[in-house]
């Protein structure tokens, strides 16, 4: 009869509610309102979008609590915010502000090269990035209640998002076709806990919701990731670095919903103005690659 808060069911449950939706990076209350009016299911409160973090260089940290609070007051949809990988005090701060989800994110400069945040210790749920199945299951073992494939943030180039989602899907298919007796070996190869590998085989998918992130810049990009099997979309720089953020936001939401309907995708893409300029992967140095942080 006693109620329980912060259970894994309740944490993973909020992510389930966001399925089929778009989560947008915002840096001001005005942007948050634009996102909500466009139909976003949640916003990510940030000091700078990933493209600007790239441009600025230096150490990227949790946003100023004032920015997070202002955004929380301006919309009624859930508000997420980012902490540096392993920075559990930034996470304590965001939990005290009562944000709805914490993103332990490679977009910020990692604070710990060995350990991620012990996410079981928190009432607020966490989302973490992953490039493949092993990485996703390691994060879930640490308590993540939602996964997003990483892609390469702030590039407006969808190629890495595609690579990572395809990798997760291919590995899930491999787990499903592996006899039970050989699963311990697969778990060893994936560097992931055996019980979670077994769970993946049982479910035929990840045990938590998996969104696509890192490079979605157009409605067609969003629909591409949905057709490849993403449960929903994170758009970082893609909206507010485009020529017409309002239009782009609306178009990406609608293309995510009707991802199997090219006519609607065509309709919403028409006259959208320029998408963000974007970066070619080969121009990034090893130090520029955010996806290789916190694996």
């Amino acid at each position, binding site marked *: 009869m006693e109620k329980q808060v*912060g259970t894994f069911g309740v944490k993973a449950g909020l992510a389930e509610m966001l*399925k*089929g*939706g778009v989560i947008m990076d915002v840096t001001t209350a005005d942007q948050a309102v634009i996102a909500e009016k466009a*139909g976003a299911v949640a916003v990510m409160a940030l000091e700078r979008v990933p493209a600007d973090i790239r441009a600025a260089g230096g150490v990227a940290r949790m946003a100023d609590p004032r920015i997070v609070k202002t955004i929380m007051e301006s919309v009624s949809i859930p508000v997420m915010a980012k902490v540096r990988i392993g920075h559990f005090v930034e996470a304590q701060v965001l939990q005290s502000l*009562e944000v*709805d989800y914490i993103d332990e994110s490679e977009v910020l400069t990692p604070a710990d090269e060995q350990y991620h945040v012990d996410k079981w210790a928190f009432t607020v749920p966490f989302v973490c990035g992953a490039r493949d199945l092993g990485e996703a299951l390691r994060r879930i073992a640490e308590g993540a209640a939602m996964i997003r494939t990483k892609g390469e943030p702030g590039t407006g180039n969808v190629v890495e998002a595609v690579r990572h989602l395809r990798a997760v899907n291919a590995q899930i298919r491999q787990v499903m076709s592996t006899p039970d007796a050989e699963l311990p070996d697969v778990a060893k190869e994936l560097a992931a806990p055996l019980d979670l590998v077994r769970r993946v085989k049982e479910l035929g998918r990840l045990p938590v919701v998996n969104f696509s992130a890192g490079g979605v810049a157009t409605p067609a990009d969003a629909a591409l990731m949905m057709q490849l099997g993403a449960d929903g979309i994170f758009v970082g720089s893609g909206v507010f670095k485009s020529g017409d953020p309002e239009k782009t936001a609306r178009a990406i*939401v609608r293309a995510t919903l009707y991802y199997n309907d090219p006519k609607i995708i065509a309709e919403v893409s028409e006259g959208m103005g320029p998408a963000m300029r974007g970066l070619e992967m080969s121009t990034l140095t090893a130090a520029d690659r955010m996806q290789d942080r916190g694996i």
Partner: protein
Amino acid sequence: MRVGVLAIQGNVREHKRHLARVGAEPVEVRRPSELSDLDGLILPGGESTTMSLLMEEYGLLQPLRERAQSRPFPIYGTCAGLILLATEVVGLSPARLGLMDIVADRNAYGRQVASFEMSLPIPVLGPDPFPAVFIRAPKIARMGAGVVALATYQGDVVMAEQGQYLVSAFHPEMSPDTRIHAYFVEKVRKARQAEGS
């Protein structure tokens, strides 16, 4: 029996699974054309602002309202679905069906850190309590005389019905218990029978 699940966004897969388990045929609904041949509808949990915006834009609200008002068409709203069914909403008021005589208060339990689960006694389902998951849940601030409370928690009505309409502030599709879906599908079966006779 074909029971639709509004598939704009949110917990669509889980409702479909539960419907199939209790012997109904689940159908995803995104367009007005997909409303034909349905015997009932579930409005799942999700973000009510997103769902209402897109229901209005893609022309689902009016045909649904007409359908429910012209002949028997049971609708069950969970969480966000409760808000979409309510005649009134406290504060920012999204476009919605407005078919059930209740006033919904969005996110009334607080933000995500206040989300909870508990064993909820629901007398119409029998003596065993129901594993109820509340996520950024709404409250029913007031309800009309024709609305019957089916479950309460700490003085708040968390599940109610009014004729063919059923609502819960929590998410029955997130627990393995299918009794509420069975209860709703029985409502749908009776409505179909009544129409046929």
